[in-house]
């Protein structure tokens, strides 16, 4: 008995059982049978053909008009067969694309994301989660003696093009080591690179800062990037960390303003991307206030746990569908 005959017999059995008892069990078996047919890549028009064969078997005296109407149904289903086979081909293609993107994302992860350094007196927490597989946010730490350089960037745009663009930023930053000590000059130089090398409709926002762990100062500059926060332990207050400056890649002659803050014990420097503050829930966009309360809620945890808790709460608020890449960095001065 061939596989095809076995399927016909099985279908005939199932349909007879259903006709006899009309039980839910028979329908459940019908559903399982359907699952098996799909697993065997049997097209919907084949199912109709199967049904027709079994009908002829069970109702040999079926009137001719009825037979003809089945043939017509078969004809209509052929179009669904085309769609069904396209589905299989798309699934294969999709799986291949996804596995490609997964490889690229892991390359991105290992090559472009920097490790979190150990710095005396600082507790550092970092989380960066892409909305899709590839991350269009970028962060970078470089430790040089008692100085920690930290960058957060956001490529306008998501997915694969943003990832390509981000790899450029990484190589550009690597080739500007001396400027790491001066955030506003680093941005000025990067602006040149972006302006010359990047697609005209790709822009990058960035905040670059330098934490001096001797003097406990944080000097920084920003290029159109979402403002971070500074938490002042003495006042138990979160201040916006404003840094004026134009987005990278727009104007050839842009310059950036240097800022500096003194960081006391218990203070925190909080850097983020707009994926944190512009997270959209079913009730609309979240306010910066709400982010502050979330941070406050978890701020007694170690910095790494803190950023993870904030992310998990925001992830849930968004029903597990991130609309933008999410990056949150906390530098907490502990001693």
């Amino acid at each position, binding site marked *: 008995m061939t596989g095809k005959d076995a399927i016909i017999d099985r279908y005939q059995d199932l349909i007879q059982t259903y006709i006899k008892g009309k039980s839910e069990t028979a329908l459940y078996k019908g559903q399982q049978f359907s699952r098996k047919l799909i*697993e065997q890549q049997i097209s919907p028009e084949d199912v109709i053909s199967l049904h027709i064969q079994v009908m002829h078997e069970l109702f040999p005296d079926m009137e001719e008009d009825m037979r003809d109407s089945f043939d017509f149904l078969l004809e209509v289903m052929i179009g669904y067969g085309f769609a069904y086979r396209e589905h299989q081909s798309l699934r294969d293609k999709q799986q291949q694309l996804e596995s490609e993107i997964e490889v690229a994302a892991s390359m991105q992860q290992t090559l472009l994301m920097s490790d979190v350094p150990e710095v005396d007196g600082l507790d550092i927490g970092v989380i960066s989660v892409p909305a899709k597989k590839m991350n269009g946010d970028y962060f970078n730490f470089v430790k040089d003696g008692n100085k920690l350089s930290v960058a957060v960037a956001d490529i306008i745009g998501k997915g694969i093009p943003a990832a390509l663009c981000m790899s450029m930023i990484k190589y550009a930053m690597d080739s500007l080591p001396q400027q790491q000590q001066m955030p506003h000059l680093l941005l000025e130089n990067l602006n040149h690179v972006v302006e010359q090398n990047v697609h005209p409709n790709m822009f990058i926002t960035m905040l670059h800062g330098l934490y001096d762990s001797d003097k406990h100062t944080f000097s920084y500059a920003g290029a159109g990037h979402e403002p971070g926060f500074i938490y002042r332990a003495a006042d138990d207050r979160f201040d916006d960390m404003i840094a004026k400056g134009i987005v990278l890649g727009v104007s050839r002659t842009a310059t950036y303003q240097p800022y500096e803050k003194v960081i006391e014990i218990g203070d925190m420097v909080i850097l983020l991307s707009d994926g944190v503050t512009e997270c959209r829930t079913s009730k609309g966009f979240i306010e910066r206030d709400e982010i502050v309360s979330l941070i406050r809620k978890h701020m007694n945890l170690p910095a790494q746990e803190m950023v993870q808790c904030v992310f998990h709460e925001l992830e849930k608020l968004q029903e597990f569908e991130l609309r933008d890449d999410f990056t949150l960095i906390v530098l907490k001065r502990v001693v």
Partner: protein
Amino acid sequence: MDIQSCVEVRNEWDIVSARQLGRNMAKELGFGNVDQARITTAISELARNIYLYAGNGKICIQPIDQLGKKGLKIVALDNGPGIRDIRRVMEDGYTTSGGLGAGLPGVKRLMDEFSIESTVDVGTEINATKWLR
């Protein structure tokens, strides 16, 4: 409005009881033939997930009436291992059902409202509502 009927899911036969419960309620509420069958299949998928991954749990079916808007709500509850990565489970093609297109994303696409909460080692609750048109 809050009459809820539940079926414990411990073995495969309980899947059939959950289906029967859902189909009866869908019919009573006035859903058409096709929607009855679809809702039943969705329940079947949720019950099967409980049976396969959690061992046991329950399926509750509840008629809904919100300011005259009528519908049917399915609640699937279990105290199983929970889902570690919900974003991943909600992706198409994650289940190994060989192109079935069902699994949780299939159920979500079918229903009008869908939510999932899961805690690792605690369990999972899925709520899904279909409105009567």
